[in-house]
């Protein structure tokens, strides 16, 4: 307990940064992932190819390597000025971590959405078209409501994974929950206890999300 209370100035900002990193990259990857999913189900082959290529490449690359690229290799390409991110090194690493998390998670979000759309039987859409529904009506009142049911539980899993993945940023100079223990050791505190508090923090955050996911799964799997 002492380790937690004596170092609240580390834990408070650390956990806050984790949550902030999580929320921003969750929104970003949901947006990008939806766009990718749209590409992957588009009727035009080029779009499908582009989406599939992105997903295949990113899904099979370790997230650590994506972080590695944005933290160390990307600045060498000179695409953006380091000054764009407030100039300081820590703000650059923050942006790099966000980019890595968003680009990586988007590939998984895309797959979840795509598999969700695929769970809707083709006959449903064909029937709605036969009834004369427009594309928007078909999507809004037939396909998406059914797809959402299938999508929400695995999407929760993806977001839980994202929350846990934010800790990898600890290895790339971003201060958040994962890096608390490294800072604790500089103060000569017991790292084991410090880390157990961090672990507990994630258990407290993740287990309710898992429970919610399970109950949603049970409640919504009845329909079909």
């Amino acid at each position: 307990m002492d380790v937690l209370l004596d170092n609240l100035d580390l834990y408070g900002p650390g956990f806050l940064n984790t949550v902030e990193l999580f929320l921003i990259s969750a929104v970003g990857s949901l947006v990008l992932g939806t766009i990718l999913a749209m590409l992957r189900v588009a009727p035009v082959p080029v779009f499908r190819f582009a989406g599939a290529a992105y997903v295949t490449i990113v899904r099979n690359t370790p997230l650590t390597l994506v972080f590695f690229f944005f933290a160390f290799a990307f600045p060498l390409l000179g695409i953006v000025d380091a000054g764009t991110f407030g100039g300081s090194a820590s703000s650059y690493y923050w942006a790099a971590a966000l980019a890595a998390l968003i680009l990586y998670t988007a590939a998984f979000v895309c797959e979840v959405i795509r598999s969700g759309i695929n769970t809707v039987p083709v006959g449903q859409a064909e029937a709605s078209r036969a009834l004369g529904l427009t594309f928007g009506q078909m999507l809004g009142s037939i396909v998406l409501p059914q797809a959402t049911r299938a999508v929400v539980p695995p999407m929760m899993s993806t977001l839980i994974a994202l929350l846990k993945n934010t800790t990898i940023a600890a290895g790339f100079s971003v201060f958040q929950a994962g890096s608390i223990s490294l800072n604790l050791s500089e103060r000569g505190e017991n790292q084991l206890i410090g880390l157990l508090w961090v672990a507990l923090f994630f258990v407290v955050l993740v287990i309710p999300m898992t429970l919610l996911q399970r109950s949603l799964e049970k409640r919504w799997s009845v329909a079909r």
Partner: protein
Amino acid sequence: MSSVLFDVPGPRARMRHRAYAVIGIAALVAAVGFVVLRFAESGQFEGSKWDWLQYEKVQLDLLSALGNTLKAFAAGAVLALLFGAVFAAGQLSDHAVFRVPSMAVVEFFRAVPLVVLIFVFHYGVSLGAPFYSVVLGLTLYNGSVLAEVFRAGVLSLPRGQSEAAYALGMRKTQVMNLVLLPQAVRAMLPAIISQLVVLLKDTALGFLITYEELLYYARYLGSIFEFGRPLVPVTIVVAAVYIVMCLLLTWLAKTLEKRNRRSKKVIEAKTPQAAEDVVAASV
């Protein structure tokens, strides 16, 4: 082609799609072209940045780094499968003494980020060589996910399977080992291998605690001044190696799945969705 969202296109739609295709190709070429241009302008394609590939010492070191990655993967995979089997059995036990602790252990290790686990073993408990911390972390995390996969696999089998086995007079262990597990493992093979892909990718976390695997060596190689600090080329090569390894594993999963589907002996899992969820949970 009739997908859920789009009908088979008529003549006008085909024209429109052709126009979209042209725009799409243009956008794709522009995006790839921009990246290539940036790489070229910042000198990443210069011969001097790729010279390191020709040195035998570098090649050997790269191979030994790859060997370290594979070593962590192999040890982690075997132990995780064992851990998963034991705790799946525990979770399915009729005795609360085994069931409740197993569930708690699995939930706990699934909830804690792998990085934090590895840090606990490396900095918290000081296990010594980073290899042990990496393998132990990989085992506990992926083992817990695999336990869920096994459990979902056994539960997805039709009830009649175990009922018939009990009716034949088998004991619970026999029912599990002779009837349920062989079927569950075959049905869950794709999910299990997907989890092994995750495990393979997660070995890269060893980089953070200075385990001398592929990424760690890439960092070192990329900083060597004599080669012109070839960080970008090295990253490209290492990424390609990881992607190829993971695709090989994925290909194996797909081949096995196809073979399973052909054979009539495999019982369709009642909820294939459940398996997918478990996999998605393990990004």
